[in-house]
């Protein structure tokens, strides 16, 4: 069976489910953080740090970072395979798509390492 090496799980169905579960996680995370900012109009460093350094938030931050990576990977793969194709990009479309995919990989790697290091060192 030929599987697409650049999809996240090499299975469209797994990718589909991961895309949606991570979307739900990210929506919930956004609501929590927005709620926190709205509840604290006079934000200061101590309040901000106490919130993000709390144990529940440390776990949620970590899940959020990993969900972002998976969600963005699948989303960018979908966009790449839909538009970077021979019809639009000519015979070198596979090369262009690998550059796109590689660029996304590098950026996501930086995000994950940077964000996890930031949250876990609070």
């Amino acid at each position, binding site marked *: 069976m030929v599987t697409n090496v650049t999809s996240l799980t090499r299975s469209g169905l797994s990718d589909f489910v991961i895309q*949606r579960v991570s*979307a*739900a996680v*990210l*929506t919930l995370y*956004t609501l929590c953080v927005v709620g926190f900012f709205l509840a604290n109009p006079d934000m*200061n*460093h101590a309040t*901000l*740090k106490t919130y*993000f350094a709390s144990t529940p938030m440390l776990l949620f931050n970590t899940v959020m970072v990993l969900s*972002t990576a998976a969600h*963005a990977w699948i*989303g*960018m793969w979908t*966009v790449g395979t839909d538009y970077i194709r021979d*019809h*639009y990009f000519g015979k070198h479309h596979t090369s262009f798509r690998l550059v796109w995919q590689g660029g*996304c990989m590098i*950026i996501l790697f930086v*995000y994950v390492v*940077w*964000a996890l290091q*930031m949250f876990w060192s*609070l």
Partner: protein
Amino acid sequence: MQKDHEYSEQMSTMNNKERPVFISVSPFTFAFPFTALASIAHRITGVLLFLGIGYLLWLLSVALESEAGFVEAQTVLAAPFAKIVLWGVLSTLIFHILAGVKHLLLDFHVGDTFEAATASAYVVVGLSVILIIATGVWIW
């Protein structure tokens, strides 16, 4: 005989040339239904967020670093351009989440008739506009 042969060869070349090709649907020649426009916007905002998330992460890391860092983040956000970028990223996030919720509901076959999906696409855009304006008021 010779003529027939040439004719059939010509036909086969022509058939080869006229094999079905993928037809690009240009936004300039084809009137997209509103649902399609909302769907494309969901993709575009997704790609924009790929970069926008870096800006939010950077702001948060500066503000979390120290007292001085928090003040620095406030100073950065006092600049009109930084506010516009923040507003842009948050607007993108608002639309992407609302359109995403709609797509999740469609996956569960909630409102997946064309009429319902068109109506919910308008709801998504309407709610987005309201929340984007509210976010703008909150930032400024």
